[in-house]
């Protein structure tokens, strides 16, 4: 049997305390002069064996209560997973989740979940009889590696934390392939994970296939999951949701949209440090609640207008160091080019001005194009295509669809033609209007992300002032970004490939709406162009673990330079063509976990032993082994209490009044 707190076993001699007290009581008996000795002799002669047995049982119960209390405190790891295996497996597969979320520590603990998990595994391995072969499969590349010494897991360079996410099914598949190829005999698969749902993907079809294959193996495979759960210590994370560079009259600026999340809902300021070209600046952001999406602008000197670079945003160390940094890169501000396919000349003119109000300062331009002869080349450098009223032929529709699929943005206005369908995605409905005195008003819009996001200074766009007299709603599977009071969409987004199709249900026309005022239209067009310009950027942003993205690239930000798995750590890389930014995946900020029955279902009929992590302090009482130990302890308490009560009941007896 293995104990996680073996030092507490030194307390085992304490179980003799009840016996010692009993003996001491017997030894420290006082002499008592007694007259009615005859009755004492009679009593002792007739004192039943049951009475003596009861006393022995009480003593035994007291000893056992202490024994189980000490055992429970020492936290024995029972069962064939980390404890008393009778027969050793031939092979033990250790599936190590090294994802970013494993870097979090539980309340009161010093070690993070991965360190604690490895510690438990090594401790458990000590109690395994024989010398099984250890095969480690970590979450970085999912490759199976045989190791001679399980202590090798302590090597942080090889098995330390990363900024990646884990794919448990891929790791299991790797174990399966290894078992088939190497015929590893009677095996156990030990999975160390924080059970993050995005890593386990319980809805994946792979699970069923995998378990069927495991069941079909000739060799016996048993699965043991060491769930590194427990309440996390106070933690905050930061990431950049959007990053855009643009020129200004004084130089250029990088507009960063930050998302700060924290585990608690209490309002507090979190200092965010921005590092660009080794220049650091810090700003405090008040996070009231569990998350905050906020914009921040970094100003760059004019001399750097044509320079590329990279930077880092970070927050102070907390419960998980792996989510405290986020890298970004920038390049010279892209030119925002809007292409307008607008039937009405007035609206065309107005939209041209609105989409490029200051072309000299902000590198913006707009041009009119004909919709009947569009080809891919014409849209090559377009950041936003505006379609208003024109009929699109099949050839143009194909070109536009390709444009969107590659990451382009299209803003579609009503055509007035009922039932017209665009890109098999959106179908226009009937045109609706209200009388002279009435108007459609907007009720809700998304201010955190998208074209209606608040300004960097925190001001909302005046969408509440939009008054619509005519509208043509559309149907399709889109996300409404702003809606009228009756719930229908004012602006709806449809994702097509890597790009987006936006449908605005009213026209930039005084007969339709007051959008011509421009206070909403201009920033909306600008933001849609910014988003559409991303596809023109040479900077590649991807998630850690993406090895192919950094082939032939060299890390230029701080970080491990020699690691064989460069992509496992976040940072900025550069190859001959571009900058590549690797950050932890969004999935690692997801706090849903696979638990209990759901986990059992994944493994189906395959033997599964779920061992909850034995963390420090509070968490230590959550281990499953506690339950039986505490039940047994409580049981002995009850028996002792019952026996003592019976003894007391005897004591409460007295001579009846009739005798006296």
């Amino acid at each position, binding site marked *: 049997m293995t104990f996680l707190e073996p030092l507490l076993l030194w307390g085992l001699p304490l179980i003799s305390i009840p016996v010692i007290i009993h003996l001491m*009581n*017997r030894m*420290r*008996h*006082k*002499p*008592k*002069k*007694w*007259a*009615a*000795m*005859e*009755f*004492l*002799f*009679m*009593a*002792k002669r*007739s*004192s*039943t064996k049951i*009475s*003596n047995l009861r*006393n022995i049982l009480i003593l035994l119960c007291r000893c056992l209560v202490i024994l189980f209390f000490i055992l429970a405190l020492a936290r024995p790891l029972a069962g064939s997973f980390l404890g008393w295996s009778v027969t050793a497996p031939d092979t033990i597969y250790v599936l190590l989740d090294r994802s970013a979320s494993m870097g979090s520590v539980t309340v009161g603990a010093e070690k993070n979940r991965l360190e604690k998990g490895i510690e438990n595994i090594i401790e458990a391995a000590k109690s395994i009889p024989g010398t099984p072969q250890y095969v480690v499969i970590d979450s970085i590349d999912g490759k199976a590696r045989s190791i001679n010494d399980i202590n090798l897991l302590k090597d942080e360079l090889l098995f330390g934390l990363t900024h990646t996410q884990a794919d448990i099914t891929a790791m299991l598949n790797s174990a399966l392939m290894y078992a088939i190829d190497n015929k590893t005999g009677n095996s156990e698969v030990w999975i160390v994970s924080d059970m993050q749902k995005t890593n386990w993907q319980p809805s994946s079809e792979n699970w069923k296939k995998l378990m069927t294959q495991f069941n079909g193996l000739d060799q016996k495979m048993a699965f043991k999951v060491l769930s590194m759960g427990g309440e996390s210590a106070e933690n905050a994370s930061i990431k950049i949701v959007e990053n855009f560079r643009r020129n200004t009259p004084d130089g250029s600026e990088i507009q960063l949209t930050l998302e700060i999340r924290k585990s608690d809902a209490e309002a507090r300021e979190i200092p965010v440090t921005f590092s660009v070209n080794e220049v650091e600046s810090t700003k405090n952001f008040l996070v009231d609640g569990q998350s905050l999406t906020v914009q921040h602008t970094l100003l760059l000197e004019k001399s750097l207008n044509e320079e590329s670079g990279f930077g880092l945003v970070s927050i102070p160390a907390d419960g998980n160091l792996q989510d405290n940094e986020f890298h970004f890169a920038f390049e010279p501000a892209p030119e925002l080019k809007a292409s307008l396919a607008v039937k009405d000349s007035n609206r065309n003119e107005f939209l041209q001005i609105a989409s490029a109000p200051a072309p000299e300062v902000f590198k913006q331009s707009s041009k009119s194009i004909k919709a009947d002869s569009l080809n891919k080349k014409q849209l090559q450098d377009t950041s936003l295509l505006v379609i208003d009223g024109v009929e699109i032929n099949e050839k143009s529709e194909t070109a536009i669809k390709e444009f969107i699929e590659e990451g382009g943005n299209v803003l579609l206005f009503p055509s007035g033609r009922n039932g017209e369908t665009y890109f098999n995605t959106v179908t226009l409905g009937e045109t609706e209007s209200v009388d002279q005195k009435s108007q459609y008003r907007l009720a809700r819009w998304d201010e955190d992300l998208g074209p209606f996001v608040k300004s960097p200074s925190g001001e909302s766009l005046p969408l509440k002032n939009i008054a619509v007299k005519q509208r043509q709603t559309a149907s399709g599977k889109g996300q409404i970004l702003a809606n009228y009071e009756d719930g229908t969409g004012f602006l709806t987004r449809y994702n097509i490939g890597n790009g987006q199709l936006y449908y605005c249900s009213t026209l930039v026309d005084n007969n339709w709406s007051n959008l011509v005022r421009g206070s909403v239209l201009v920033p909306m067009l600008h933001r849609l162009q910014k988003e559409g310009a991303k596809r023109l950027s040479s900077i590649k942003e991807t998630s850690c673990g993406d090895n192919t993205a950094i082939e032939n690239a060299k890390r230029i930000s701080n970080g491990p330079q020699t690691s064989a798995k460069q992509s496992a750590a976040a940072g900025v890389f550069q190859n001959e063509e571009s900058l590549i930014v690797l950050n932890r995946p969004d999935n690692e900020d997801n706090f849903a976990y696979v638990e209990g029955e759901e986990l059992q279902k994944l493994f189906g009929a395959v033997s599964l032993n779920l061992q909850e992590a034995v963390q420090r302090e509070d968490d230590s009482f959550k281990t499953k082994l506690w339950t039986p130990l505490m039940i047994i302890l409580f049981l002995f308490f009850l028996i002792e209490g019952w026996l003592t009560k019976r*003894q007391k009941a*005897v*004591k409460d*007896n*007295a*001579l*009846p009044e*009739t*005798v*006296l």
Partner: protein
Amino acid sequence: MKTKEFIDPELFARLSRLNLEAKNLMHGPFSGRHKSPNKGSSIEFAEYRKYVPGDDIRKIDWRIYARSDRYYVKEFEAETNLRCYIVLDCSGSMSFEGKDGSKFDFGRKIAASIGHVLTEQGDTVGLTAFNSRTFKQVPPRSSGKHLRSIYEILDVIKADGKTAIAKVLHDLAASIQKRALVVVISDFFHDVEPMLKALQHLAHNKHDVTLFHLIDEEEVKFDFNQPYSFVDLEGGSTMLADPTTIRNQYLQAFGGYLKTFKERALKMNMDYRLAMLNEGCEDLLAKFLMERIEGGK
């Protein structure tokens, strides 16, 4: 002179307002306040009977003769004094001492008090104090001097050794010629049957037997929480026991003994009085005297 602990003048004074009445008819050499089985001269009319030669002619009722022309003699109840034998057990078990004092002191107080009451009312009182080693006896007399000699014996005698109650009671039963009041003060921790036979001997001789059964509260409750080495007060033998484990059995045995002894004593028409030390001597004696008076009427 040192005041003896068992002499409580205030108690004596309070008890003196009461008398100790004999329950049975008494034979006594002197006339007194207690009924005698003999007819004698007193103011209590008993019966008429025919004159037989030899009768005192002064007892002939001449009025009856005038009416019936026959000689009738008027007989009256004889009243005699009471002879009381106080039997005090001085065995080692009587030296048992609980929180309310020792049984022996309690017993001496009962003996002294009864002696005082009887002497005050002109009856005779004697004392038999005994254990296996010592036997002190003073015959019944009625005088203050005699009472003081009883007090002297009560003062010097110690509770020690084994009891010899059965033998002493048999001897006493054999030695008392006339009906008397026998007051036995003891814890009666002896084999029950021989002891009851001895008591029966006294009852058979038509003595008015009163038993003061001295028991301490500790003996009936046996409420101890720790092991004790119980030392036999009559023999010095010891027994190590945990009272919590044998309490039930002890109480069963002790309760059975008390019940049997009481029932058998009452069956022999004896005046059985359980004397709990914690209830005090005065209440016990006052109740005893009051019930005697009420029983006498």
